[in-house]
């Protein structure tokens, strides 16, 4: 018998390299080659050094009780007592202490409506009506003077309710202006086009703070003799005009993305200008600009912190006033800043996630 007839198995091939599971992931993402490994060790070392220190300061060695003597102990971490002690003054500003359930209810209503407006099942014809109702309710609750509620003037309003009111009201009010300006910038009529272009470029060329200064110093001069406008309303008008210019550019981008053939097809069907815009162009354009509008809303929400400079005490102004007015707590204002930074972060982060989700939804229709 020769060797050639006996069965001789070849050496088994090595098992395939695992491409799934945590070990494979670490191999591919942390220890792929010497450069990756080196940077893993450097970055990991820095993290291991600093993260425990930060956690120690912020959590483990921090004092939560509203007692500033605790924070004076050597080696203490963050002094969150400032928040425990002042949180009502931070969140509601100078609103009368016993009446603070009113801004609470009003804020919950408005925030609830904002959240509902983000959900598809609420995108119905009655949503704008609901907005008007809730905004009216907000004002009734905050201002009072009806149904046994005491009157609280707008200069006592402050904190988170003011922030949310300024942001959402300027969004709602700026939308129609932005729509008209965006259409105007694409109009064939030279006078209207020029006016809209000047408006947008002028507003976008200057910082919001100069618009707010204008609202607080120049608007009183603009009004006829004897007419006094509330400072809140003036600032609201300023922010609305500012936000409208930015939204107009976003909407114009959406209008430009609608193919020309759509407008021409509408013209051959004999639709008028307004019919074309309302039935053909806007439904397509507006669906595309929702993420952009949402991003504008996020920046407006952040920009409302500027009204503290023209002495309206929104969230940040309220925090500064609450902490600075108390000499015992003043050294711990940094913790106060961190607290409101957290509030802003939660709101803005949630909204930016939503904006991402909408963007995916919009793109889905294009990727069939």
């Amino acid at each position, binding site marked *: 018998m020769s060797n050639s007839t006996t069965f001789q198995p070849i050496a088994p091939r090595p098992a395939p390299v695992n491409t799934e599971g945590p070990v494979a992931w670490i191999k591919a993402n942390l220890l792929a080659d010497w450069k990756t490994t080196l940077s893993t060790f450097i*970055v990991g070392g820095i*993290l291991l050094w600093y993260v425990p220190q930060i956690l120690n300061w912020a959590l483990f060695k921090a004092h939560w009780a509203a007692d500033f003597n605790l924070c004076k102990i050597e080696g203490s971490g963050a002094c969150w007592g400032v928040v425990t002690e002042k949180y009502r003054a931070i969140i509601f500003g100078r609103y009368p202490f016993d009446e603070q359930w009113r801004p609470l209810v009003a804020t919950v209503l408005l925030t609830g409506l904002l959240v509902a407006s983000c959900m598809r099942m609420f995108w119905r014809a009655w949503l704008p009506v609901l907005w008007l109702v809730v905004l009216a309710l907000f004002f009734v609750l905050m201002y009072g003077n009806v149904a046994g509620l005491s009157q609280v003037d707008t200069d006592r309003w402050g904190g988170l309710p003011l922030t949310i009111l300024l942001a959402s009201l300027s969004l709602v009010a700026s939308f129609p202006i932005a729509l008209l300006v965006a259409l105007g910038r694409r109009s064939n009529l030279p*006078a209207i086009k020029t*006016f809209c272009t000047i408006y947008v470029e002028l507003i976008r060329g200057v910082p919001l*703070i*100069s618009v707010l*200064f204008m609202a607080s110093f120049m608007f009183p001069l603009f009004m006829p003799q004897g007419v006094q406008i509330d400072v809140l309303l003036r600032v609201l008008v300023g922010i609305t005009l500012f936000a409208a210019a930015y939204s107009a550019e976003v909407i114009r981008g959406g209008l430009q993305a609608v193919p020309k053939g759509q407008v021409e097809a509408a013209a051959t069907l004999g639709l008028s200008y307004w019919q074309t815009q309302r039935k053909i162009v806007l439904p397509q354009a507006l669906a595309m600009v929702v993420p952009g509008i949402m991003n504008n809303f996020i920046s407006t929400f952040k920009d409302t912190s500027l009204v503290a400079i023209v002495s309206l005490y929104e969230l940040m102004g309220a925090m500064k006033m609450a902490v600075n007015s108390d000499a015992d707590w003043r050294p711990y204002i*940094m913790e106060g800043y961190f607290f*409101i*930074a957290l509030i802003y972060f939660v709101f803005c982060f949630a909204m930016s996630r939503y904006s991402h989700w909408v963007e995916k939804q919009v793109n889905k229709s294009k990727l069939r």
Partner: protein
Amino acid sequence: MNPGSPPKKNNWSWRSQAFRGVVYQIVAIAAITGVVWFLAHNTLVNMRIRGIQSGFDFLAQSAGFDIGESLYPFDSEESYWHAFLIGITNTLRVAVIGIILATILGTLLGVGRFSRNALVRGLCLTYVELFRNIPVLLQLLLWYVVLTEVLPASSEAWQIGHFFLSKGGLNYPIPVWATGQLWAAFGIVGSFVLIWIYRRWARLQFEATGQPRSGFWVPLLILIACSLIGWALGGAPTELNYPVRGEFSIENGGALTPEFLAVLLGLTLYTASFIAEVVRGGIASVARGQGEAASALGLNRNQEMRLVMLPQALRVIIPPLTNQYLNLTKNSSLAVAIGYPDVVSIANTALNQTGRAVECISIVMLVYLVTSLGTSLLMNWYNSRAAIKER
């Protein structure tokens, strides 16, 4: 009449689109003129009643207030006009340095999002999400608190080499002015000429032989060599003005105030998070096949990025990057909140002293409009160079 063309209808009826257009425009112009006239009339009446003076003549008057920091000396006796000029230079100083630093940091963070290392990716993502979701004004104020309260007093300043960091700001050594620096500057100017000649020669060589030559290292070498030669020709001055601990503060040397540092840090870190997103979006927009094709041609990862990916990504990156530069410049106006004497802060002081709201606010708006339009023009010119050359 030519039967081929339809009769041109230009009748004066509501059915004519052209006529309607004219009517709409006349109505719009009339409405805008009416509103402007109404507001201007009210303003004039109100100003007369309240006894507010108007006009820009106050610019020549003596300002009467001191300015915390300026690029060149300012005295409270000098005119408002001068004070505004210092405000503008302060705004530009923080904006230009901020733009440069934010671009570098933002680009690193944006490229870091594509790192093969998960830790680096995660760190970049965390940074971007954290910094862009907190209002920039809050960040400025927070940095200001950190710089003025957490840091030690200037008598116990942190010292690294000849650099001091304390509540009084950052102190650093500066070279003592001598003719040697002037010669070095001449050397730098001369090196630009040499670099231009070298690049021209390199391009001709490349077109003739296909041999690529370094477009970065050789010019860098020329730049360093020329400035060193200039410096040596000028007598090689090495004297530096070192900051030293004085009795009450750090003395001598160059200094950056905590206000300036807070504005710079806040604006840079905030804008860098947006620039990182712009850069990430730009790189992600380049089709995946481009990178694969570059590898197929045998380019290494560095060449692939530099020759294939970046030139295509830049076209997408530049327009939103311009917007971020403009935003940074406009956000520098928030410096007023922490007392950095930028143009808004100067205008605010002038407004409170003279009561001329209309004039002061229009100066601020004009300054920002000119800066914005100037930056847009510059970036549009650069964009037209980077855009796809279509025939």
